């Protein structure tokens, strides 16, 4: 565990260019969102709220803006959602390349290599993603929410909202939902690693291998995933809080804010690199399993996924 974390932190330090590439998956969709928000926000400079907004927060500006410009807000929101989707796909695309570069190291330019490798892996990554979404729907939706719904039904209409079964339902929803989400996501991550290593020719095999690698190490992997999540969320909260606190009142201040936030996102991207490096380190230790799994799969029905 310690070695894995040490590897992760070392990767954070060493692979700044890779973090920069990953950062692009934020900046490019953010640019799209910025363009979509242009016509909507332009009105603010010619509104009575210019001064108050430059000073800080204005509750009425926000409410009257969204009430009187509902159609424009909807249009902008649609583009922002599209930007989020694009950003997510971009992350999927770049992650494949990032993983290959992390695995192989090798010459620069990093961006070119990430794009080349990402392109090569993108189709199979999309297949793995669809499998991931199905698993998520099953474990979080079916098992998490479904069981909670069943508990509600068993409790019946006559049970008080604070009754034991409703308490169990709430706890189940939170813990099983989160646990399901983390485990399903971890398996997806390991499957992507298997694809990046070339251990698996397709998403199905990659998922099978990920299942093998995760077996018996769930607690350790969950611990590591939680650790990096906490690190990333803490970094995000810190930079967001300071960003809001900065509240610039001049052009220079705004420039400083933008710079500061992008540095923050870069550090968050580095934390993501650290997470991947940690997973790769653990995965390395499970290569023996991989060999046996591959040999089994070539001769007969491979190990079954849980």
């Amino acid at each position, binding site marked *: 565990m310690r070695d894995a974390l040490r590897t992760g932190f070392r990767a954070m330090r060493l692979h700044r260019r890779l973090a920069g590439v990953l950062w692009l998956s934020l900046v490019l969709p953010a640019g799209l*969102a*910025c363009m979509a928000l242009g016509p909507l926000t332009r009105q603010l400079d010619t509104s009575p709220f*210019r001064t108050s907004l430059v000073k800080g927060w204005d509750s009425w500006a926000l409410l*009257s803006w969204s009430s009187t*410009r509902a159609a424009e807000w909807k249009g902008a929101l649609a583009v922002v959602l599209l930007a989020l989707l694009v950003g997510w796909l971009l992350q999927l695309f770049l992650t494949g390349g990032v993983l290959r570069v992390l695995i192989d190291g090798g010459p620069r330019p990093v961006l070119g290599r990430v794009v080349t490798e990402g392109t090569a892996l993108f189709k199979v990554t999309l297949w793995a993603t669809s499998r991931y979404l199905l698993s998520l729907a099953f474990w979080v939706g079916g098992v998490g929410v479904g069981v909670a719904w069943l508990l509600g039904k068993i409790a019946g209409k006559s049970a008080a909202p604070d009754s034991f079964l409703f308490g169990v339902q709430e706890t189940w929803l939170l813990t099983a939902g989160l646990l399901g989400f983390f485990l399903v996501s971890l398996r997806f991550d390991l499957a992507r690693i298997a694809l990046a290593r070339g251990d698996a020719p397709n998403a199905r095999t990659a998922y099978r291998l990920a299942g093998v690698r995760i077996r018996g190490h769930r607690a350790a992997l969950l611990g590591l995933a939680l650790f990096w999540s906490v690190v990333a969320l803490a970094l995000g909260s810190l930079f967001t809080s300071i960003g809001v606190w900065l509240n610039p009142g001049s052009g220079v201040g705004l420039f400083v804010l933008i710079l500061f936030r992008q540095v923050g996102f870069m550090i968050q991207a580095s934390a993501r690199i650290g997470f991947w490096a940690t997973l790769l380190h653990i995965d390395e230790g499970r290569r023996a399993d991989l060999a046996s799994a591959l040999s089994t799969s070539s001769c007969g029905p491979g190990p079954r996924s849980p």
Partner: protein
Amino acid sequence: MRAAFFLLLFPGGLAVALEAPRKIVDYDIQVALEPKDRLFTGHETLRWTNPSDVPVSTLKFHLYWNAFRNSASTFFRESGGRLRKDRADEKEGWGFIDVTSMSWKGADLTKGARFESPDDGNADDRTVLSVPLPRHLAPGETIALEIAWKAKAPKIFARAGYVRDFFLAGQWYPKIAVFEPRGRRRRAEPGWNAHQYHAFSEFYADWGDTRVAITVPEAFVVASAGEKVSETRKGGKKTIVFAQEQIHDFAWSADPRYVIRESLFDPSRDVPASEVERASKVLGLSREELLRGFHPVKLRFYMQPGHESQWRRYEDAQKWALAWLGLWAFPYPYAQVSVIDPPEDGMGAAGMEYQTLYTAGTDKWLGRWPFSGFREPEGVVIHEFAHGYWYGLLASNEFEESWMDEGITTFAETVMMDRRYRYSFALPFGLGVTDEHQNRAQALGPDLDPIRRSAWAFSSERSYFKNSYARPATVLQQIRRLAGEEAFWRAFRAYALRWRFDYPTSEDFFDAFRPLAIPGFEALVAGAFSGTSSIDFRIVTATSERQNLGAGYDDAGRLALPPDEKRKGKKDKTDERGPFETVVVVGRDGDLVLPVEIALTFENGQVARTRWDGCEKWIRLRTVYASRLARAEVDPAGTIVLDRDPFNNVKVLRAKGLSATAKVRTYAVHLVENLLSLAWSLP
């Protein structure tokens, strides 16, 4: 000073301000609850005095639980079995109330009794019972009726009823309607004012004393209006007697699971000194005058298990409401307040007002981070307690003028919430939305209905809510801004004092403000209360050009070129030399006429202000000044809160400093990046 002001507002009217209500109807009720069958078996002795100068031959009663009798009732037809996101249980949820006997001096009155539907003619509605008397009741004569009844509580989805072992008894007993004498609520001829139970209204009643003996199984905790008088136990049941003088409504609740928390409102500790100082300054009253009439009030909170930790939030809001309303209206006259916390599966009963008792409402999540910043529990407490003034202590007719209850209450709520909590909806990082702004946003947009309208006559549920809550609250904010703080609050307080224990109408409210000669006030009364008028000020055009004097032919016939032509591309410092001719056209869309200020800010920092009465549809301002116009703004102080679109109130010709667009867009883009980076924060 105070008396003089009062006289100014109500010439000749001061004498009728009441210290106590006119006593018209007393109830002495015994009721037994069978929780298993949800049955209420009751008997009441009703003493009613004919308040008019004419004899009365018929009595009218409200039997409001018949609204839940079947799907043919007016309430069901109006609501469709849904209210405030709750849906009726149409299998087991029905309720009813049946009068089993009614007599006067031994004479049975039920024989000639029949149901009436004065509001909509619905022959299937059973909520108003008309009972002919064997002889006329003379003016001033008191009748003592013996009434027995049986009622089944409906399953809660709207206001009252049961869910599991929780019972809320509101509008639960045969209640006499209001016989209005000549002059009451400006009535020319005396007569009954009896309304059916509607989806959106249920309150208007006469004052009197009520005593209720409630019998329930011993395990039940009873929360009731009034003061507890006695408690006796027998055969596994207990009977608790409650009594309250000077009220016109009585509700109670029972639940074996209630967790009781008690507190005391102590004026010496719980009326904030800063608020006393503010009120003293604005109202022109001394601290002693303001605090006169304040007294300790017992507070009881009947909490649901799982919500106990939130009682402090209720308590804080309750004490603040007692303090604020006591200062800006008049001190609460009763000795106690009971606050019911309904269960989460009975939220149809949440947020209901009754006298000396009301229902609040919260959720266990609201007691936990990050949801604890949502001030919903405080907002409900403040709103419902404020109802105790505007429907309770000033007995307005909620059926016919719902804004006088809901609208004034919402207005008072916004002031109280924003002053105490700043944001009713607190977002992370110190951001949030105020209660007033939320209401203002809801009040924007076109209207099909005026504010003054019978609650059941609005074009839609949405229109009812908008025109009974958010819009009147916003119109009152408009009046406040047009009148100024001192004038507004003095008139507001004078209105409250004058109509305490009485029956005000909209006109009585307006009359409290008319002597102030507030500009635009009558336009608001006609346009917003009685009409659907709207208003949107905007800067139509704004130009500021170097004055081109001296171009063209002079008297000697010589042609002079305009200065710009002479220069032909040679820009120099003289371009920025004045004088500059500034022309600004300000327009008014909508047919509500209100006065407004217009401010022209020039590049040299000078600001020229002018006031426009807003009577015409537009006005053109022309000025020649040494500096170029930088910004033209209509309503720079944001006085016109009814302005439909504040975004067109400004034209900026030349701006200095940071662009708000750039700043807001930057933060918005960072938000998008934050959302995307969440994918990095999780495995």
